[in-house]
């Protein structure tokens, strides 16, 4: 029997209480870790410890996998009709919606997100994602395939069984939904590791999973460190499939461990260094707004952040002036995520803060011009001011490596072919943003860019119904949309002989 933590919110924009269990959620029960101790949860706006939660280890993963396997063979998998799976997912979505304000507050506390954004972006998209996949649950179709009249030939799209899912800290609840939505809809059971930095909303949703009526063992939630829980999941011989969202560095480890253990099927959503390209015939006023949104949303902590901004020389000065104005405005609205009017919050942790500041130093030393920001905001918490570097060159670290912070690298260009080449000059391939009013150019350039997601005249506008994933070292496999169903099912071809005799 594990403990609970009750947080009392007494802020300008939200007052209330939220209670979460702090243990591990395995087989529908709350338990303490077998032998791994605790992890502190820190409020990034203040740098202070809020509470501590159980840290799991490989033994806990073993127990969870056993529970997940049992559920898959008895109360879930194909023993539970799609209609019922869909009903439970809808129920879970309704329960989150009924507690929307509480979830948003927990997310703002844990991640440092501005409260209003947590409500209308994060929590709302988690709810609609679960509802979307609830709708797919009784629509997982195979094919009947004509061969000869002597044979009935068809395919089944069957669930894998126990899936390991590892999610990051930038959209904690959203990531839970993106992962469990399609996995559960298709009949898999899940062992999920939230980020140890941001466990609170995952812990809160675990109670709703019981309340919604999911059989025990269908969803198991184990907090812990990468080198313990993540490693155990990626090596586990009874986990058939693993889905990971996080850094490219860790993604490689997961793929390697999967290969060395039981050749588990791997989906990876990794980093990006996504280009934003603004042509001289763009609607400049709109383009500047989208470009700012593209790099400063969530304090730059988005895998699809448009962190390299290429601007046509004819509009460069005008762009920079407007872009700087917006960034300055954000700087003036930096502060407590719970204060109405805040638009920019802290980075999620000390480690991330140090990392981003490190890149800012690299930027300065590497010869780029620090045009705006580049320093800490305030005395407490992990706040970094919106930062703009200009005069960047492709061989600079700030142009090559993913910073994951509110740092924009701006580059001037002249020709379409030139900018396409510069934009593609990266090992990553997650997103691209193209701004132009010329429709032929928009389509040409969007098609020429090596990225899994192309946004024309917008940025960061995901849709639950559209697939999402990376080219090159930004990942493999697709989440969201109908495509996620393929991610979580394996194809069995069934050949029934009705007339061929040897």
């Amino acid at each position, binding site marked *: 029997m594990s403990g609970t933590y009750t947080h009392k919110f007494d802020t300008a924009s939200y007052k209330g209480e939220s209670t979460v269990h702090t243990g591990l959620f395995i087989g529908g029960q709350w338990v303490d870790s077998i032998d791994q101790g605790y992890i502190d949860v820190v409020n990034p706006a203040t740098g202070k410890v809020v509470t501590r939660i159980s840290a799991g280890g490989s033994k806990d993963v073993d127990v969870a996998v056993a529970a997940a396997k049992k559920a898959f063979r008895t109360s879930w998998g194909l023993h539970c009709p*799609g*209609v019922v799976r*869909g*009903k439970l997912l*809808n129920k879970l979505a309704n329960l989150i919606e009924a507690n929307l304000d509480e979830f948003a507050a927990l997310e703002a506390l844990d991640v440092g997100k501005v409260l209003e954004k947590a409500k209308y972006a994060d929590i709302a998209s988690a709810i*609609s994602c679960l*509802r*979307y996949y*609830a*709708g*797919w*649950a*009784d*629509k997982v*179709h195979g094919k009947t395939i004509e061969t000869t*009249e002597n044979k*009935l030939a068809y395919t089944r799209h069957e669930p894998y069984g126990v899936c390991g899912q590892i999610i990051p800290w930038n959209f904690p609840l959203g990531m839970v939904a993106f992962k469990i939505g399609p996995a559960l809809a298709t009949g898999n059971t899940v062992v999920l590791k939230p980020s140890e930095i941001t466990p609170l909303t995952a812990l809160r949703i675990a109670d709703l999973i019981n309340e919604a009526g999911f059989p025990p063992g269908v969803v198991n939630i184990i907090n812990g460190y990468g080198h313990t829980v993540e490693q155990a999941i990626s090596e586990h011989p009874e986990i058939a499939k693993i889905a990971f969202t996080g850094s490219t560095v860790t993604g490689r480890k997961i793929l390697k461990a999967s290969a060395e253990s039981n050749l588990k099927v791997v989906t990876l959503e990794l980093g990006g260094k996504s280009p934003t390209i603004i042509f001289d015939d763009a609607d400049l006023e709109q383009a500047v707004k989208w470009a700012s949104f593209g790099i400063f949303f969530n304090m730059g902590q988005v895998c699809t952040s448009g962190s390299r901004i290429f601007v046509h020389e004819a509009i460069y000065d005008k762009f920079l002036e407007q872009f700087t104005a917006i960034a300055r405005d954000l700087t003036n609205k930096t502060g407590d995520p719970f204060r109405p009017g805040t638009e920019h919050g802290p980075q999620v942790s000390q480690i991330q803060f140090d990392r981003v500041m490190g890149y800012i130093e690299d930027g300065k030393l590497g010869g780029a011009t620090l045009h705006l920001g580049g320093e800490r905001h305030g005395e407490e918490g992990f706040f970094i001011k919106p930062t703009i570097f200009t005069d960047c060159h492709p061989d600079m670290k700030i142009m090559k490596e993913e910073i994951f912070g509110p740092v924009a690298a701006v580059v001037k260009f002249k020709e379409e072919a030139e900018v396409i080449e510069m934009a593609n000059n990266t090992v990553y391939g997650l997103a691209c943003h193209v701004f132009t009013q010329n*429709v*032929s150019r928009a*389509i*040409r350039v969007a*098609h020429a860019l090596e990225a899994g997601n192309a946004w024309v005249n917008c940025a960061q506008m995901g849709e*639950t*119904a559209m697939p999402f994933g990376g080219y090159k070292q930004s990942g493999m496999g697709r989440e969201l949309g*109908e495509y996620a169903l393929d991610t979580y099912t394996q194809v069995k071809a069934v050949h*029934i002989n*009705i*007339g061929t005799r040897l």
Partner: protein
Amino acid sequence: MPSTVSINIPGLNKTINVPTGLFINNEFVASVDSTELIHAINPATEEVICSVVAASSQDIDVAVAAARHAFKTSWGKNVTGFERSRLINKLADLIERDAQELAELEALNNGKPLRIARDFDIGDSIQCLRYYAGWADKIIGQTIEVDNKAKLAFTRHEPIGVCAQIIPWNYPINMWAWKVAPALAVGCTVIMKPSELTPLTALKLSELVREAGFPPGVINTVPSLGPVGGAALAAHPDVDKVAFTGSTITGRKIMEAAAKSNLKKVSLELGGKSPHLVFESADLEQAASWAALGICYNSGQDCTAGSRVYVQETIYDKFLDLLVTKVNAQVVGDGLDDKSGGGPVVSKGQYERVWGYIESGKQEGAQAIVGGVKRTGKGFYVDPTIFIFGPVLSVGIFKTEEEAITLANDTNYGLGAGLHSNDASQCMRVSSALEAGTVWVNQYNILNNNVPFGGKKQSGIGRELGSYALEEYTSVKAIHWNFGEKLEWPL
């Protein structure tokens, strides 16, 4: 003419309020030019329950205009799939909330047992709505590679537009759900004409449509006589599609009217004369149960009623004995009586029609081994009747598989078919050979919302249920977007 009547439910000591007007633009209104009424009758007592407004062809014009306006402004491409999903789910929740009351009204007007109306008809209808709510935000076209240097080619699956839906009296609520759900899910607006025999639940459901929050004009309900409202809708120049479930005779008229007016799209679910084949390897006890279901369910008032049963001669006597026992086991009575497993047929007209067939069968020398005798007293009762080589349920005999298939396919209909066998290869061969839109193997009459349903041959055109129904309500637009080809002119 009061706008709501209060109906007393006999034996349950309660009343239900039923709106009596035409439901157009989310309001219940009187006819614009007619005082005609439709009298809804309780088939167990032969008494009038209440009367509702009968739509004239002028009313149909008003309803179509309302549906068109909604399609252009608040529905169609003006509403997201996400929002359509939300509203259809809300409607399903409201029907679930009011299931008991709706079941009482259905049992009263149609005659079917209340618990079957609630647990099967309405239960399946709720599930059907939820199923299509799940499709609403998943309408997917294709992008198609043509020439990557010059063209982006893709399809959009757009809603067809204003759809007239004409439904029968045998499953009023369930047929309503089958029609309304896919149409709304893809963005069509609807003019729903329920059967003039069973208009009440469609009107009651209209209240829930409004409560759920659908914009005015998205669904309109116009009870009306077939030759008036049905004909007007089929011939209407501003209706894009008509979907009809009912008799083959009427289906022809609808298709003809559609062709003569504006070539509106037509889908039809018509009659059947569905065969049951019982092979010697079958589990006979189970086969007899399924065959009994096939003819007794809903008092035989089912388009897929298994009205012809062919039995392999080696097991004929044994099977017949079992079948008679099963059929006799059902209790037929007033739908509001908990003991009833089946009710009266829906109306005087149907009563006389079926008895006409029974009498003519007797006159032609067929032997009724079960039933065939009219009851005394009130109620349009036709007790299950089994003829050897006659109408209603006829039981025949065959020797070989080939013979069975020939007998089964010897009909202009092609709606359903059932076969019972434990020989897997035989099951595959026979199910492949049967000319029917739905083939049941070791089962009968059980449908699922996610599996398509419809007829071959003269049993219909198009498919309902499953993902296939979406195609009935969308029309494909192909878009060729040139971004790289310059035309040399003249050629």
